[in-house]
Structure formats: structure tokens, C-alpha cells
């Protein structure tokens, strides 16, 4: 368990496909990559800990002079590309521009040049009496990051998600009203595959909130809307996928109607399961599991913090109701996780139907400490250590969480701190 302090609020967290690397993006446009140390027999207690591998400035603030708008440098999303050679690559995006970064290691240096000396200065040729073949000598590991592609000017509205296709050649980027398909090698054009902008902006009723490619079928993708619906689209059906193949929508419960019904039904995140059979969505109060074969309603609904339902007006006032929480599957799709307030995060076991609330805090993060389950009491009997709803700290919110693709290791972003928790006892998945 280790908290890593930072000067800026973390805005995205993402493991790579093997879980060896963990990338975070922050509000200042920086990306920090952590690498898992290989387990060593010499120091069994520090097996598999994550240390800083590389830090770089991905995006800078920009100014759109035409519209007199400042473009924030905040990193909205990072997605890793599947590794195809020794280098690692990732895509990072702010509101307007996506960049492809290549991360390479250098641990050897050529020495023994004929024409240059050790500092690179040209040698006096009269001192060269024989030829030598330069040899590679080991050096301290240097991690180099370079921007390989900049995908700019593709979006009028704010980019909310990017997703790499399973074909490893294309990726999509989604803003409030449009989704574009890019080829990773081509930066000067993209294909628009979804456009929900109405002819008259005053007729606007919903926006795109998140999107993702199917993990196995390169022609399928899903996007979620502010109205709480999911649309599964097939790129083989038409060039412009405005017409969905499947529409996943749950009818609203009329007894829960309030001024804020529309806000709390807006989907803030959608994730395919690793199997590709299910989708996970997060709205303000719940997480839902959807079966791709059933459009009428989710197959499972879990309450994240239903005690907030009576407080929606205050949460509207202080803007918390607009918080966009993310959700995550574990590697075997048996447990789902999402964040909440007071630095709490919740896990739901789909098989046992048990759930747990845990807290990411400095106290709980001493090495090898065991996380203690927390409870929010809503009146009635109050146990020791319970937190009452009114004493929840709404400034401490866990919006971004990530789960290692194979092991029980989770990364939790709590404002400007990153917590990495490992389940040592139960490393194999159930």
C-alpha cells in the first residue's frame, strides 16, 4: 500500500495490458508512469511494488483565439496501446487534442567511437592511429518519452473518452456530440462515425458521456448518453453509426422522480467486461451490469450510496451532483468497483452479492496494513466507527479507479494522492 503525493489533482488512472505499468494523468497536463518492481527473493516484503518510472508533460494550456476560449491542459483519459515491440505506447488526451507517446528504455550506450571522444567532441585526427569497433556498455537506465503523433482539430466539443480498437490500428475519440475514428498512423484526418448534434442546438436533449470499443469484436462499440441509455453500434452496418444496433435503456421508476432525476440517470462511465459479454455503467447513485443480449434492463443493479438520494438538492447546490465517477471490473469479471465520497470506494462481488466499503487514507495505507471495512449509517442504530451521512466529506471524492488486468491490485486516485492496494493473501482470483 503506498500513497504517492502530487501537486496536482489526478484526473485519470490506467493499467497497461499486462499490469506492469500504471499511468496517471493530472490536471496540470502531466503524465506519471509507475512500473511494478519484479519480485525479488532478497526483499520479499517489497515484492511487486510500483515505483515511478517516468514523468512527462503531455499537454500544455492553450488558447483558442477564434472563440476566445482557454483549452485546459487537464488529461481526461489515457489509454495504453497493446505492446508490439520493446517500446510502450499510450494515448493521452485533453479536451481537444490526443497525443500518441512512445516510451523507450535505454540501458546501454555505445563507447569507443573513432572520430568522437567520450564527450562527443571531434578528435584530432592525428591522434587516431587505429580503428576500433564501438561497443555497447551498460549505463543507468534512462526512460525516454517522445510524442509520436498529435491528433488535433478533430473535435469541436470537449473530448470525454478515447478507446483503442482490438485491431490495434484504429482508435476512437468521443466528445459531447460526436465520435471520430482515427488511424494511429494518420493525424490529418479522421472519420466521423457518430453525430448526434441536432440541426438546431436548441433542440439538444442529450449528449454523449462515454464510449468504448468492444474488447474482441473490432466492429462493435458502445456509447452512453446523459439520458442514461447505452447504444451498441456496428461499424459494418453503415459508415455513419447514428442508427444503433442495440439500445439499452431502463425505464425510469416514477416513484423516484424529482427535479434531479435526469442528472442522476446520466451515465458517467461505461466499461465492457473482459469477456466482452457484459457492460458496466455508473450513474450518480448506482452501478449496473448489462448483458449484451438484453436491452430492456440491466441484469444487476448495485446501490453505491443511496443515502444521498434525499440530499440531491444540496448536492446540486454544491455541484457534487455533476461528479463523474468511473467504474472498473476485476480481471475475472466477478467483482466490480467504483468510488464515492469521503475517500470511500466500494466493491461488489457479483457471485456472493456481498459488498464492501473501503477508505483510501493515510492511516489505512501503512505498508501491509489491512483495510478495514467502513460503514455509513443512515440513522437508526449506529455502531462504533460508523460515519454518519452528514459528516461525509464531499470534497474528498474518488472519481478514478483502476484494477490490474490479472491480479488483485487496485489503483485509487484520491484527489492528488494515488493509492495502490494489493491483496497479497488472495492473489489468485475467484
Amino acid at each position, binding site marked *: 500500500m503506498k500513497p504517492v503525493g502530487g501537486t496536482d489533482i489526478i484526473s485519470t488512472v490506467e493499467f497497461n495490458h499486462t499490469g506492469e505499468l500504471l499511468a496517471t494523468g493530472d490536471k496540470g497536463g502531466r503524465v506519471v508512469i509507475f512500473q511494478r518492481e519484479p519480485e525479488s527473493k532478497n526483499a520479499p516484503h517489497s515484492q511487486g511494488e510500483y515505483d515511478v518510472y517516468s514523468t512527462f508533460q503531455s499537454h500544455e494550456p492553450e488558447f483558442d483565439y477564434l*472563440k476566445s476560449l482557454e483549452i485546459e491542459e487537464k488529461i481526461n483519459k489515457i489509454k495504453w496501446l497493446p505492446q508490439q515491440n520493446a517500446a510502450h505506447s499510450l494515448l493521452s488526451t485533453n479536451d481537444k487534442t490526443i497525443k500518441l507517446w512512445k516510451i523507450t528504455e535505454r540501458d546501454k550506450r555505445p563507447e569507443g567511437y573513432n572520430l568522437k571522444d567520450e564527450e562527443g567532441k571531434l578528435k584530432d585526427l592525428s591522434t587516431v592511429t587505429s580503428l576500433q569497433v564501438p561497443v555497447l556498455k551498460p549505463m543507468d537506465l534512462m526512460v525516454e518519452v517522445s510524442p509520436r503523433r498529435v491528433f488535433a482539430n478533430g473535435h469541436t466539443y470537449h473530448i470525454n473518452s478515447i478507446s483503442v480498437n482490438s485491431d490495434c490500428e484504429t482508435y476512437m475519440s468521443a466528445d459531447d456530440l460526436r465520435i471520430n475514428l482515427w488511424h494511429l498512423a494518420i493525424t490529418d484526418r479522421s472519420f466521423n462515425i457518430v453525430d448526434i448534434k441536432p440541426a438546431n442546438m436548441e433542440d439538444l436533449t442529450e449528449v454523449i458521456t462515454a464510449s468504448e470499443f468492444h474488447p474482441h469484436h473490432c466492429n462493435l462499440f458502445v456509447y452512453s448518453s446523459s439520458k442514461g441509455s447505452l447504444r451498441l453500434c456496428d461499424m459494418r452496418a453503415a459508415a455513419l453509426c447514428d442508427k444503433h444496433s442495440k439500445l439499452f435503456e431502463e425505464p425510469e421508476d416514477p416513484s423516484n422522480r424529482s427535479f434531479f432525476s*435526469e*442528472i442522476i440517470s446520466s451515465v458517467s462511465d461505461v466499461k465492457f467486461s473482459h469477456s466482452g459479454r457484459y457492460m458496466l455503467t455508473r450513474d450518480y447513485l448506482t452501478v449496473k451490469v448489462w448483458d449484451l443480449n438484453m436491452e430492456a434492463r440491466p441484469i444487476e443493479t448495485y446501490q453505491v450510496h443511496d443515502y444521498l438520494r434525499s440530499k440531491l438538492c444540496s448536492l446540486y447546490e454544491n455541484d457534487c451532483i455533476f461528479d463523474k465517477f468511473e467504474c472498473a471490473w476485476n480481471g475475472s469479471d466477478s467483482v466490480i468497483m467504483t468510488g464515492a465520497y469521503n475517500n470511500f470506494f466500494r466493491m461488489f462481488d457479483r457471485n456472493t452479492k456481498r459488498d464492501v466499503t473501503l477508505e483510501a487514507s493515510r492511516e489505512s495505507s501503512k505498508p501491509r496494513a489491512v483495510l478495514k471495512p467502513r460503514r455509513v449509517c443512515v440513522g437508526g442504530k449506529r455502531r462504533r466507527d460508523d460515519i454518519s451521512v452528514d459528516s461525509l466529506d464531499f470534497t474528498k471524492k474518488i472519481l478514478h479507479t483502476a484494477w490490474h488486468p490479472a491480479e488483485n491490485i487496485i489503483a485509487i486516485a484520491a484527489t492528488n494522492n494515488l493509492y495502490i492496494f494489493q491483496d497479497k493473501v488472495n492473489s489468485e482470483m475467484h
Partner: protein
Amino acid sequence: MEFKLEAHRIVSISLGKIYNSRVQRGGIKLHKNLLVSLVLRSARQVYLSDPCPSLYLAGPAGSRGAAGVGGGPAGGPAPGSSPLKKPRRNSEEQPGGAAAAEEEMETGNVANLISIFGSSFSGLLRKSPGGGREEAEGEESGPEAAEPGQICCDKPVLRDINPWSTAIVAF
């Protein structure tokens, strides 16, 4: 009656959010503004459908539509037209709330909404009545203007319609 008070409060808060969104870094967030406008519409409908008498006296109908309000013809918007006209039509426009059938209080456009609900916008009240849209466009009252959530129940009558009209065009 409580519904009316609650709806009133929510409308005030919502208008404050829409106003503040214009000065936020990074540009107007379309998603958030859409959600706020949906809340605004719901609250307005509840307010109007509540049979209790209005909290505020409506001013004379003629003066409200007059001075430089964006978009609608004097006296209220035409049915179906947008109540939220923006002077600066960039591609990140705010969505308009639906203009419902006109009520006697003529809350169909934002100018009137703020006239009736927005006494808490004390900062805007201090602006002198101006000319047309161009002047209002230059106004950036900033965050000090809005204190949403305050219900000024001791101001039963609208003081001055004109400063509102020009300030609202900034929306």
C-alpha cells in the same frame, strides 16, 4: 406552497450556475449546462403549476419584453422559439430550455425568469441600463454577482426591469 419555494430556490441556483459557467476556465461545459437547463425547466414547470399565488408581482408586461432582450419579440417569445438566445454564437452554444405555453407571468424567456426569481443577483442590479447586445456582451460581472440560493422574500416588487434586460443578454 413549499413546492413553489423549493422550485424558486432551484431556479435561482440554476441561473447562477449557467451564469458562472461562462467565466469558467476551459469554456462552457455543454453536458453540465444541458443538465442545468433540464433542472431549470422542471423547476419552472413546478413553480407555474403550483396553484399558490406568486411570490413576486409581475411587472407590466410591456416593459419586460422591451429593452434589448435577446431574441424574442416584445412581450414574450413566440411559441416554439428559443428562450435562451446567445449573443455570441460560437459552436459551443448553450441548449435552450423549451419555451412552453405562455403563462401570465411570462416566464418563457430567461430575462423574465431572472426578473422574477433572480433578486439574489444583486450584483447585476447595480449595472446601469445599457444599450443593445454589444454592450452587454462586454459585461463580465464575474463570480461576485451571483449568490444563488438566497431567497429575498422581503423584496416583493421588482425594482428595476431595465438593468436585468441588458445583463441577461450576457447569457
